[in-house]
């Protein structure tokens, strides 16, 4: 797994629009991001956002819209 520093995870997630501004992240959530989320996981998230943007497919916030069942 990647060895990038945890603090850069939050910066990259904010930049990608996956989470709110860094200053608005509660301490508990920041701890979760810093302690549990690897840089590889951040890479995976950002890559799909780039793919959707290139395809001009907007992301959604409605949790009822999930992906097509897979099995």
């Amino acid at each position, binding site marked *: 797994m990647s060895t990038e520093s945890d603090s850069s995870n939050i910066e990259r997630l904010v930049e990608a629009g996956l989470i709110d501004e860094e200053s608005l992240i509660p301490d508990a959530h920041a701890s979760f991001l810093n302690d*549990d989320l690897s840089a*590889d996981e951040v890479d995976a*998230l950002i890559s799909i956002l780039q793919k*959707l943007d290139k395809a001009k497919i907007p992301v959604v916030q409605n949790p009822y819209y999930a*992906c097509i069942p897979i099995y």
Partner: protein
Amino acid sequence: VHTDLLARSASARLRGKIDLALPAYGAPLAHLLERPDIRELFPRCLVVSYHTSRSMVPLMEAALGHALELAPGDPVAASLAAYLARHIPEERHHPEHGGAVLDDLSALGLDPDEVRALPGTPQIDSLVAAELAWFRNDHPVAILGYLELEAHVADRRTVELLIERTRYPRAAFGQLLLHSRLDPVHAKELHRVLDALPLEEWHERLIGLSALRAITLITDAFVDAIVDGGVAAPLTPPTALAPAQGELTSGVITTDQQLLGL
């Protein structure tokens, strides 16, 4: 931000990671529902589902095999093996791997043999390869990240909207309808298992990476199916299949707003 994050259980932490990805994961289906050519695109998306479906039980069996090997000296592997031994039979919906999705594709007018003969979806092949590598090199508990997707399937109302918009017969949505009912139950059981396993930090990182990789690659595959047809592009779209009349909804649900619970 998922409020369960504060609970700090393994399943809550995993759901927190998944929450970050849901806006992307839900995008292809939301986009599909708005496309005027949804009747052409939906079968191509279902081919991606078929390729995923046909690999799932063999993948879980591979994880079970690795878990059984590790089980004598590894309590996580031992509990994982017990869970997979229970869960694998629940996912056998047809004698042929992926056969239940093939039945749905047949209801769309596609020839099952033509679907079987298609090349595999590259992203699904990559996902299977990644999972197998994790089983072999790290730990078979990685499979639980992939299985977390059972907590994020299209719900019944969304499937009904899909039926309405595509105007395909309900017989083509057998697996979608079934999983809208079964997978939330499976997800609860998975979360119970996650919280009962004696997971260490590296196990949780592996499970999270597996879940996010699955979301990334499956979303990627559906985007390709929508944009250029994916590997199913050579198939003849079932244009001859007449729109189903009188079976679009049960009559109970009548508007998009009701279907989505808005």
